[in-house]
């Protein structure tokens, strides 16, 4: 021992972090001996049990010896003259004594009754927090439950295809068949097309045909579809029902809707007409899924129908350059094949079909993520993962705010209970007993709050129905109950821990003497810290809601560059989801074909509508100036120019288009009234993009707008926004092409028109529509409303933020109110003395309120950078946005201080105005 050890033989040292831990958290005065002893033990362990175990034992020993886990007492003055029984209970700190429970509950109940205001504040705050948690739990469990019930769902994938990493949301028509041939590792490939069609049942109940509008539940699918998505077949079977052309499979619910309550076997063989001309026969009925799915189709026409019907013209199944957004594919992998193995085959696949330098890319995306990713597959409503996580975080924060209230109020009140605790301790109550008592009080309050929250659930669901996704329902099932139990447990532990600890530590000798201002007024600091925390969260929401509000005002009130009032666009309300971004050839064939049959009819309808009373002007167009529809060309430029090509976006209209929308011409002239002129208008931005700083120079120059076409510029239009503010507006060209202009826009003479007259007018328009397009459903939308619809998500975000702001501010102020009531009560005598000595009412008010103002200012300092960071990120989602100006933060701070002062001010004023004689006479 003690021999010289050379460096080589030096035994491994104990873990350095453990040594450091011991040096930092060793009980006072014991470091020297413990470090030494442990080092000796370590060498001993090295010899007896080996290095790994020695290190392990060393770490364990350190962990047990450091504060707060150690039993070591640094003061050695414990008196062991007590009876033995006391000593024994003292050793076991958390002994639960069932005999005391009724007493705890009784005292807890009495306390709740006595301090009605505090109990009310606590229960209300907690109930609100728990209710928010409950609602958000239901929403989250709904969103995360999508498509998790399919057998082998981890082997089901969809294909995310696109150009240069972009997303098409669909695949080229021939791709599924080609994948089946060329890619190995796929067990099943199922192509399907989403399709929109009206439905007619020829022999309804009274022999009269029944018609149904499209409800988005129709798919044209290969038989393999049912290999991937399993259904229970009530009639027919997965293998054969969809193999023949002109067959259709329905779900039981759909069959009931179409044919009434018939036995599934009797529905087989019935006839359905789609779009009035496609006659199909029912060949199968499947039971509806009970789980939530994005693939919520309920009628499937066989894929084999496409080549033998008019669908052939609408759905291009050959040609790799025709991208139609309805074309989808699902695949199922062979067992133990990884998606990366398939992804690795796509580059060769792309080369084979798109030439040697393909821009085409494709990846597999798992089924489980589809609900959260709008950019690939699926037809249903999508949810946003960040939004879901944000919601959960908000729920957590709101609950924590309510818990903070509880902690604040109970520690503030604890001084009043010091004497009770003193007596309990003297009579043999120990620390653990007192902890159990306070936990049971917290539990009582929490249970009351949970009960209240559960009662609030249903009304909250109906009030905020438009903020909650449609499939979520308030229901009390096993999961919900379990969640509520968890919340109860968590809340009780979090809220009860600190009060129980503080109160348990009271020394009976001190408290029984009547000294309630227990040393260690660090509680005050804690309380202040918690208030700062609460207001930081509240301020975050206040600022967020200010910023979102101002951005939405900007978005909705900015002059778009054209008139939007009193304009009705006819046709089906358009799908709001962005389709594939403009590909020149994408839908050309289909539009041409549709257009030729439609153009003539549309012209007739336009003339008919023009003659109706109350109509000011009618034009034909491809789409309104603003909207989600977008068609364009990425290779625009001046003729014979070798500048970098620019993106151009197409708008179609004749000479009436500009005056109809009140757009300004800044140079040149309007289009000439003729159906055959070859000329176009460009926007100012377009002129600039083409390289003209003086826009009038662009007049007469030829512009390339497609690989085959160049047109001369007739005029330059003042810029207008063509898309929601989330996306930048491309350079615009306006051109007249009668075959494209199949949409009708009507301007109404609003002056002196009542709502009733408007209704009649729309009724008349509908009649005219029905006369010309008998099979097609009539739909219309007001332009200003459809513009607002583009921001539906943002408006929903705004409402959510406002609700969250309301709740956080309310809970914070509730807590503040409780504290204010408490502190003015406690300081009543001090205030009395101050008044007697000549203090003014205003002076006392300032004294009572200044601390809160200070705390909120600190909260503002913390919240501002955080809020700036988050809101800056949110604003990046807009191509056109307001500035994040400093006044927003100032205003938020002022608002918070104002609300807080209103809360506290009343109490402060009452205290300050009170007659000092009264307060001084107590005792």
């Amino acid at each position: 021992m003690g021999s010289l050890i050379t460096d080589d033989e030096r035994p491994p040292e104990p873990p350095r972090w453990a040594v450091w831990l011991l040096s930092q958290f060793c009980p006072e005065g014991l470091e020297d001996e413990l470090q030494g002893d442990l080092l000796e033990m370590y060498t001993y362990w090295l010899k007896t049990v080996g290095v790994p175990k020695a290190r392990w034992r060393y770490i364990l020993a350190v962990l047990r010896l450091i504060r707060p886990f150690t039993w070591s007492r640094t003061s050695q003055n414990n008196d062991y003259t007590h009876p033995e029984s006391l000593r024994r209970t003292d050793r076991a700190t958390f002994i639960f004594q069932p005999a005391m429970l009724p007493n705890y509950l009784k005292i807890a109940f009495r306390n709740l009754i006595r301090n009605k205001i505090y109990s009310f504040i606590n229960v209300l705050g907690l109930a609100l927090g728990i209710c928010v948690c409950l609602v958000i739990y239901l929403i989250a469990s709904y969103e995360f439950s999508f498509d998790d019930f399919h057998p082998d769902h981890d082997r089901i994938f969809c294909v995310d295809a696109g150009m240069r990493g972009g997303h098409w949301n669909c695949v080229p028509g021939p791709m599924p068949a080609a994948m089946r041939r060329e890619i190995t590792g796929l067990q099943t490939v199922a192509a399907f097309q989403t399709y929109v069609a009206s439905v007619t049942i020829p022999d309804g109940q009274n022999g009269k045909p029944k018609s149904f509008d499209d409800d988005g539940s129709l798919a044209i699918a290969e038989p393999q579809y049912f290999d991937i998505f399993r259904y229970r077949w009530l009639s027919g079977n997965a293998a054969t029902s969809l193999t023949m052309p002109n067959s259709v499979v329905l779900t039981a619910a759909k069959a009931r809707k179409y044919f009434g309550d018939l036995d599934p076997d009797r529905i087989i063989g019935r006839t359905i007409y789609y779009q009035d001309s496609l006659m199909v026969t029912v060949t199968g009925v499947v039971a509806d899924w009970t789980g939530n799915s994005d693939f919520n189709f309920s009628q499937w026409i066989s894929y084999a129908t496409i080549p033998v019907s008019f669908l052939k013209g609408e759905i291009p199944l050959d040609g790799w350059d025709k991208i139609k957004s309805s074309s989808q594919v699902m695949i199922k992998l062979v067992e133990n094949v990884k998606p990366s193995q398939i992804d690795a085959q796509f580059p060769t696949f792309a080369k084979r079909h798109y030439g040697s330098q393909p821009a085409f890319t494709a990846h597999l995306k798992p089924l489980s993520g589809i609900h959260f990713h709008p950019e690939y597959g699926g037809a249903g409503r999508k949810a946003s993962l960040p939004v879901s996580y944000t919601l959960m975080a908000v729920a957590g924060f709101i609950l924590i705010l309510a818990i903070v209230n509880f902690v604040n109020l109970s520690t503030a009140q604890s001084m009043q209970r010091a004497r009770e605790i003193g007596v309990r301790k003297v009579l043999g109550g120990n620390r653990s007993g007192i902890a159990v008592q306070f936990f049971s009080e917290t539990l009582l309050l929490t249970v009351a709050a949970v009960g209240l929250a559960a009662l609030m659930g249903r009304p909250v669901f109906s009030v905020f129905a438009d903020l909650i996704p449609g499939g979520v329902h308030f229901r009390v099932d096993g999961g919900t109950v379990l969640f509520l139990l968890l919340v109860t447990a968590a809340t009780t532990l979090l809220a009860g821990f600190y009060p129980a600890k503080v109160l348990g530590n009271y020394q009976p000798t001190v408290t029984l003497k009547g000294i309630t201002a227990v040393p260690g007024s660090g509680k005050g600091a804690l309380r202040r810290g918690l208030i700062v925390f609460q207001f930081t969260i509240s301020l975050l929401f206040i600022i967020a809601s200010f910023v979102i509000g101002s951005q939405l005002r900007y978005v909705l009130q900015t002059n778009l560059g054209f008139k939007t009032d009193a304009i009705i666009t006819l046709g089906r309300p358009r799908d709001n989801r962005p389709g594939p971004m403009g590909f020149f050839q994408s839908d050309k064939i289909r539009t041409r074909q549709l257009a030729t049959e439609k153009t003539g009819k549309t012209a007739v309808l336009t003339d008919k509508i023009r003659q109706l009373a109350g109509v000011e002007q009618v034009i034909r167009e491809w789409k309104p100036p603003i909207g989600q529809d977008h068609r364009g060309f990425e290779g625009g430029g001046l003729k014979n120019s070798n500048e970098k090509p620019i993106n151009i976006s197409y708008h179609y209209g004749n000479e009436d288009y500009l005056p109809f929308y009140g757009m300004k011409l800044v140079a040149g002239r309007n289009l000439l009234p003729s159906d055959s002129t070859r000329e176009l208008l460009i926007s100012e931005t377009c002129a600039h993009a083409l390289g003209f700083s003086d826009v009038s120079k662009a007049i007469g120059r030829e512009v390339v707008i497609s690989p085959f076409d160049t047109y001369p510029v007739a005029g330059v239009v003042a810029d207008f926004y063509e898309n929601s503010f989330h996306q930048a507006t491309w350079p615009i060209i306006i051109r007249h092409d009668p075959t494209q202009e199949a949409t009708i826009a009507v301007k109404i003479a609003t002056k002196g028109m009542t709502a009733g007259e408007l209704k009649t007018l729309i009724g008349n328009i509908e009649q005219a529509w029905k006369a010309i397009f008998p099979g097609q459903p009539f739909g219309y939308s007001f332009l200003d409303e459809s513009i607002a619809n583009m921001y539906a998500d943002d408006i929903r975000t705004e409402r959510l933020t406002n609700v969250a702001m309301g709740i956080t501010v309310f809970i914070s102020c509730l807590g503040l109110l409780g504290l204010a009531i408490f502190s003015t009560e406690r300081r009543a005598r001090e205030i009395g003395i101050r008044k007697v000595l000549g203090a003014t009412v205003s002076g006392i008010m300032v004294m009572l309120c200044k601390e809160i103002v200070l705390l909120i200012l600190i909260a503002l300092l913390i919240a501002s950078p955080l809020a700036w960071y988050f809101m800056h990120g949110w604003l990046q989602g807009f191509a056109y946005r307001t500035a994040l100006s400093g006044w927003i933060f100032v205003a938020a701070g002022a608002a918070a201080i104002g609300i807080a002062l209103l809360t506290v001010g009343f109490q402060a004023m009452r205290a300050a105005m009170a007659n000092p004689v009264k307060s001084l006479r107590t005792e």
Partner: protein
Amino acid sequence: MKRVFLGELEEVVLLTVAALQESAYCASITQTIDQQMGRNISFPTVHTTLQRLEEKGFASSQMGGATAERGGRQKRLFIVTAAGQRALMECRQVRAQLWDQIPISVIQLWGA
């Protein structure tokens, strides 16, 4: 009614303190118990027990010399106090009494 209360672990530790005489400190006590009794009592447990014995007045301690193998740290050396001696002896006496009450014939049977 017993006057003193000495737990089994406390008794073992206190006996070891007595056995080791001048060199009784936490590490040596733990190692001795480990080697001689084959009982794996963890170091922190011994440490706590020693503190408790001191609080009860059965042992007293003072800081002693440092050695190189413990990194130049001082050690806390324990000795058994008079009360501790009494308690140990009482324990032994109580046990002896019980031993005495077992009939010799029975003990012989055990031995056989």
